[in-house]
């Protein structure tokens, strides 16, 4: 996967480049709009990360220019601005997703994966998800572990489904709030943790291998091996 990273802050650029390379992307970095245009025209990229506040031009202007030049790869916009208008504006003007700084790496990676998946020909959607001995029937909204049916509330099922779809990858609290409850909020309280705690009580029974793992300071991961 070839990725073009357009970010002017050297600190952020360097840690992003390292983390993205660790995650398996081939990263080319640019610090301003001009360089980004040149690099984008030289090679073919699968995905772009563009910061809105570039020294020589606005990130959205750059994206529009690249689109005109025939770059069709999806774009993840990074924004340090705070208004919603800019985000909506960015989305409408051809950027495909946005993330406000500061962000968790896990969330950045998840959004990149989503964008790539959206852009690739849709794989036939399965009605069943299997993670080790955990099995989810999406039509009957039923989860079983080692053949035993788990008594889950509808909300718990949606939460478990989200974890299973991202099995082996870290999901943060704000990602869970966004995808499961549909809101971008940052509660001061441990509301998400309690949901995970309850779900874990039902999924990871006594004597079974714990599947849901907490990564403190980052989020949660459903183990797939």
């Amino acid at each position, binding site marked *: 996967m070839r990725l073009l990273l357009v970010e002017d802050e050297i600190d952020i650029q360097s840690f992003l480049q390292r983390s993205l390379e660790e995650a398996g992307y081939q990263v080319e970095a640019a610090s301003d709009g001009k360089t980004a245009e040149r690099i984008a025209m030289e090679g073919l990229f699968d995905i772009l990360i563009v910061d809105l506040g570039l020294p020589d031009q606005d990130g959205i202007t750059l994206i529009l220019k690249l689109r005109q030049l025939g770059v069709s790869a999806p774009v993840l916009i990074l924004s340090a601005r705070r208004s*919603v208008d800019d985000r909506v504006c960015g989305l409408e003007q051809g950027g495909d997703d946005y993330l406000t700084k500061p962000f968790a790496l896990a969330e950045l990676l998840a959004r990149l994966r989503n964008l790539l998946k959206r852009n690739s020909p849709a794989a036939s959607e399965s009605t069943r998800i299997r993670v080790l001995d955990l099995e989810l029937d999406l039509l009957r909204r039923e989860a079983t572990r080692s053949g035993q049916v788990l008594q889950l509330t509808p909300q718990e099922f949606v939460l478990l489904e989200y974890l299973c779809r991202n099995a082996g990858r870290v999901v943060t609290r704000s990602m869970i709030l966004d995808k499961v*409850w549909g809101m971008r909020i*940052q*509660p*001061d309280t441990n*509301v998400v943790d*309690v949901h995970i705690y309850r779900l874990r009580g039902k999924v990871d029974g006594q004597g079974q291998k714990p599947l849901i793992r907490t990564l403190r*300071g980052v989020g949660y991961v459903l183990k797939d091996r």
Partner: protein
Amino acid sequence: MAFACGTMLVFIFLHRFVASDIQRRSDAWLSGEVEVLGDVAEQTPKNALYDRVVGEVAELASKEVPNKDSSAGASNDSVFFLQTGGDGSLLLWVGAGSGVPNLKAIQAGKIVPGSPSDLRVQGFEVPFRVASTRLNDGSYIHLGLSERDELRVLRSLWLRFVLLWLLLVFLGFNIVFFTTKRMLSHVQRMTEAASKIGHTDLSARVPITARKDEVGNLALTLNHMLDRIENSMHQLHTITDSLAHDLRSPLTAIRGKLEMSLSSGSQSDHSEQIVSAIEELDRLTDFLNKSLDVAEAKADALRLNRVPLDLNELLRVMIDLYEPSMSESGLQIRIHSGGPLLIEADAALIHRMIANLFDNELKHLPSACTVNLRLSVENNAASLLLEDDGPGFDPEVLPHLFERRIKREKSTGHGLGLAFVDAVVRAHGGTVAASNCEDGGARLEVIMPLFPVSTGRIVAS
């Protein structure tokens, strides 16, 4: 009103003036005629012809009565001529009737020779104006002129004055009414435009008329003022944006580096510290966001992306999210709602606002308490009532609850929660009120305007 009274006074004055003028003219005529008649009576020998000669002269005189109503014809009862002897006996009578009541009235009243005066006669509706003169032979001549014609003229004049006055007042009222209405409709349009500007966007302007009057000037002045406000608002946004940018960039870099050192596999002893550093960093970010939002909202500069939002649905999702945490803390939460209730609001801000309300309950309520939510339409506005049976607000803190940096004891938050709630609700044109229930629990009431095109509630099927 003042105009009506003024014109009324002018008309009354005019009427008085005309009346006294008519009086003066008829008095002059009377005095003149009575003198002529006196001369005639003195020079005419007292024989059989005397009656006829004086009678003819009196008859002739009565034909030249001023203000005479021509329609009255020959039957002349507006003038009488009366000659009395020194002893008061009736010597000669010319006029309508027998003249006896006239004589009685003259003898009853004090008629001074020379100056004319009013005389009421039995059998006549209107008084007579009577002038008298004393002849050398000791007899008196009285010439009476009925005031009927004079009164008729004055009455018709009065009628005309009243009609004219009514017309003037009516015209004046209409002119004032329509001019004022036109003027006020301009002002009204400006008021409407100006009141919209505060709540929606600052780029709108008050409609400008081509007129060069005070209202036109007011519109121009208002627009200049709005230009300045928009400019300072824009500067405020630039400042908060650049402040956010300048703080967020280093935060992003720090957080990224911490995360990398955490995931780089070296399970060092520092991982615990790194985790807590990341958590602190996230709290700092949240604090930064809220502070800037509260600051912008206090300056009425919060940027809203309004969409139709069902409060009922939103509250149920929120309760679903918060219920496990609440029951872990021994709290119960209940909702009473009459079904879907639409408002037009910025979804992200309202989500965070409700989350703040719930976080607040979760952080401050002792266990075994119940939180009651009541969603309803009150006075054409959405009302969200949140009551608990906990210890309530500290009376000392209550008046300052929505100010920044107020927090209840043992709070883990940064004291921005309720200030943020207040800021968001105000930005949407609503209000928040806090009080303590009678039985001691805390009570918060949030009022928000309903979605404009519907009445808010969708008919529950």
